[in-house]
């Protein structure tokens, strides 16, 4: 049994993993699931010192960083971390990282990979069914006691046969497509950065999101947020989607021109929306709070117990592998 001094010294020698912002997973699930005997977390956000002073005071080279979806890592931050060789994200999306700069500096990235895809796809499908069949709205109606006093609730719209346009046919988009086409008998088409191999992906491809919208009854946004996808769902796309059209967004709020979408919903230019993400979370445009044809979700598409367990396993696994010079579990490969 090591003496307290020896134990403390051993702790001192453990590699450190920098965290700049408190991971929501620590709060909502528990930090205890992310601990390891092979490394220690160093939380700069617990200090009042600015980052450069904090790092100087710490005095040790920082080789690994645990970044959340909100942890913006650009050239400025990377400048302060010359020894950084690994960023592990708790998000599947990587829009918070300056990928080009990371590549330039030889920094490897391990993302949350595919662990959230099923949950996000389930959320997207759940939101779509909710909007079309007015589940949240009619649940409210019943729980307010209105069924007995006011009569039947207005009819919804049938899902089978609906044309679904998926924007971004990555891991999440593919799972959404499978559920809706194989499960529910919808007809799926998609837009993506590049057309996929038709032998593997049987859905029709649209180069242009506006054309996809014109040929869809519902648009489901599953893409990452990049320069190209920022506000890709704009006034023209919404107009092309039309008065009977529905939007489901499980990507990032900024993929949509939110102000324009709100206007369309308020004025009946589109039929409804299921939204898990917003441009300025947790702020939700107040007009949406009054609408019955909108279903709102607090960016919780990945927040299931099962996903959090998987995330903990992946984060700990990736960090331990890195410090043991073993292959990462979910290394991000640029394509």
């Amino acid at each position, binding site marked *: 049994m090591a003496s307290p001094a020896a134990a403390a010294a051993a702790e001192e020698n453990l590699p450190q993993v920098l965290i700049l912002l408190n991971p*929501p997973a620590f*709060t*909502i*699930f528990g930090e205890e699931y992310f601990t390891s005997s092979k490394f220690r977390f160093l939380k700069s956000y617990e200090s009042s010192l600015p980052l450069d002073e904090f790092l100087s005071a710490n005095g040790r080279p920082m080789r690994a960083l645990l970044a959340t979806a909100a942890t913006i890592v650009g050239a400025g931050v990377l400048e302060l971390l010359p020894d950084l060789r690994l960023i592990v994200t708790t998000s599947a999306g990587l829009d918070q990282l300056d990928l080009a700069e990371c590549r330039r500096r030889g920094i490897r990235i391990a993302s949350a990979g595919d662990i959230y895809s*099923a*949950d996000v*796809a*389930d*959320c997207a*499908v*759940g*939101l779509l*069914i*909710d909007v*079309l*069949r*007015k*589940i*949240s709205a*009619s*649940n*409210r*109606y*019943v*729980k307010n*006691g209105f*069924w*007995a006093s006011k*009569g*039947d*609730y207005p*009819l*919804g*719209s*049938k*899902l*089978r*046969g609906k044309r679904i346009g998926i924007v971004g046919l990555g891991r999440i988009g593919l799972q959404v497509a*499978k*559920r809706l086409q*194989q*499960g*529910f*008998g919808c007809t799926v088409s998609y837009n993506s950065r590049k057309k996929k191999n038709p032998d593997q992906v049987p859905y029709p491809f649209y180069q242009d999101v506006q054309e996809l919208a014109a040929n869809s009854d519902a648009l489901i946004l599953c893409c990452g947020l990049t320069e190209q996808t920022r506000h890709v769902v704009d006034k023209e796309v919404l107009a092309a989607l039309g008065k009977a059209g529905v939007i489901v967004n499980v990507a990032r709020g900024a993929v949509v021109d939110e102000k324009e979408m709100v206007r369309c919903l308020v004025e009946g230019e589109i039929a409804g929306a299921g939204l898990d993400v917003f441009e300025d979370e*947790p*702020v*939700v445009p107040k007009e949406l*709070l009054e609408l019955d044809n909108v*279903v*709102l*979700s*607090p*960016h*919780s598409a990945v*927040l*299931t*117990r*099962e*996903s*959090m367990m998987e995330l903990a396993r992946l984060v700990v696994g990736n960090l331990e592998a890195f410090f043991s010079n073993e292959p990462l579990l979910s290394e991000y490969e640029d394509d």
Partner: protein
Amino acid sequence: MWFPKLLPVTERSLLRPFLHHTTNPLLHSSTTSLRQSNLLPRRVSTAAVSPMESISVLMTCPPVHPYLVEALEKRFTLHKLDSVPDKPQFLSSHRDSIRAVVGNAAAGADAELIDQLPKLEIVSSYSVGLDKIDLAKCKEKGIRVTNTPDVLTDDVADLALGLMLAVLRRLCESDRYVRSGLWKKGDYKLTTKFSGKTVGIIGLGRIGMAIAQRAEAFSCPISYFSRSQKPGINYKYHPSVVDLAANCDILVVACALTPETRHIINREVIDALGPKGVLINIGRGPHVDEAELVSALVEGRLGGAGLDVFQDEPNVPEELFKLENVVLLPHVGSGTVETRQAMADLVVGNLEAHFLNKPLLTPVV
């Protein structure tokens, strides 16, 4: 996969004046293909001059669907029992004229009503469920009975899945959380993943199979209970509902309501399903011992419930209103514009076929 009920060639040719050219129904979405496969009449037109105008049809259910009411009023003399102040008096004075009844899930034709209508020839139900019709009595008296199978299968199955997702992922509660401004204070709590959960289905008929197909797309293992094991089905059969409940995460009621299936969800089944289990009811309220269900949910002995039907609609136990693991819907299983229209077309089409001495479209008896 939706399988159409195909009519023999002779019946198809008899129906030709009413119907579109036949094409392969498996290539089209349900109502289009039904329309083209001889199972639906042509969409009702205003030009049709009906020789049947003098036939009295009694609607025993509340007249909630304007399209159906209009279509019936165009063709027949329609009486709405709901708006009659003195029902016994009305039935007595119309006993010799009423030749058809239109009912639904709320009200149909029980033995008492059938006895009061000696000229009754046909009961056409605006539902697939037949629990409000005394089938034995109809058989005995040679009264035809029709319902609306197939056209509503997709919508009911979609709703079952929608309820599963809403309950496990707390979609309705999360929506409430955002609307109340609570998101500004912090994240909503963790919910339960749906994909991969075991779905147990009671009743593997059209609707049960459609639910299974959907759940499979979420990689959910499927198990079921049925009166007898189905040959050629890959899903795991359980010989009792309790056994099924003990071995699944989500239990769905998808069977017909009969005297045998009343309270098929009882205390024992609820206990077997347990504090992590979820019950989905898209069948009929009386499938469930509602008092037992309510106390199990209030006491946390059952993990959650998604309910579209209740013992005494539209009355719903108020103890359920505040529960965040419960989603309550006002019997909307078939509640889409498209499907209600298809159902109405079947009701009208069956009545027309009967009074024109043609084969019924979707007869039960």
